[in-house]
């Protein structure tokens, strides 16, 4: 009987990882989505990307605020995306990955601003970077998203 073990290992391991990625990835993504929806429903400072305060508003204090997250794709989606690059088109799984990363970063920025009782966050900007690369310089779908802006505390009563 020929030795089938190397073959089983070579095919079995990727299949196992894809299966694990599929299941664990689904659970993780579902949990993250629910957490995002719950936290987005909470009240907090108004987020804007306006570059200056409205005429009527008077500020008493302002400071720089940050929210960051590093988010990774799962093995199943990475595999699916690499297949998709053969035929081209939209990579929906990676779109949702970056979408979740941006929402998470924005929420952390808002939570940071709320902690110091800001009323608004002005000039919100996003910065995204693919930070992980394998030995063969093939990027892993993992990205750092930074959201930053200037938190402003408004004068009460005035204006």
């Amino acid at each position, binding site marked *: 009987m020929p030795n089938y073990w190397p073959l089983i290992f070579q095919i079995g391991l990727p299949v196992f*990882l894809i299966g*694990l*990625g599929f299941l*664990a*990835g689904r659970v*993780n*993504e579902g949990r*993250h989505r629910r957490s995002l929806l719950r936290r987005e429903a909470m009240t907090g400072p108004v987020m804007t990307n306006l*570059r*200056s*305060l409205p005429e009527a*508003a*008077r*500020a*008493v*204090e*302002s*400071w*720089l605020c*940050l929210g*960051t*997250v*590093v*988010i*990774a*794709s*799962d*093995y199943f*989606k*990475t595999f699916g995306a690499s297949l998709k690059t053969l035929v081209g088109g939209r990579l929906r799984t990676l779109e949702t*990955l970056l979408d979740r990363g941006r929402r*998470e970063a924005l929420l952390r920025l808002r939570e940071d601003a709320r902690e110091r009782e800001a009323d608004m966050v*002005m*000039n919100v*900007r996003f*910065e995204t*970077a*693919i*930070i*992980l*690369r*394998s*030995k063969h*310089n093939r990027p*892993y*779908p*993992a990205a*750092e998203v*930074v959201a*930053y*802006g*200037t938190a*402003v505390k408004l004068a009460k009563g005035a204006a």
Partner: protein
Amino acid sequence: MLLSNMEQVPGQRIVQHLGLVSANTIRAKHVGRDIMAGLKNIVGGEIKSYTQLLTEARNQAIERMVEEGERLGANAIINVRLSTSAVMAGAAELFAYGTAVVLEPEGQG
């Protein structure tokens, strides 16, 4: 030191521009964190150790930028911008830059 990414600071007037200040830092991840990240690339989700690593590095870049501003005699850095880039496998550069200025409260002088 007041930091802001706006061009004007509400309630304050810019009395002097001291020019561009910037600082960078390049950080490499270590093997332990890499193994955890490798696992995360299978199951997906946030890589907390990287979030923390990059936050620390970014804070250090901002701190150095603030030091440069202090040397120039500024009391604020406005229009702050941040950027991240992967310079090589396993290392990221964090860069912060802005304009050092002297502010004074509006309605004085």
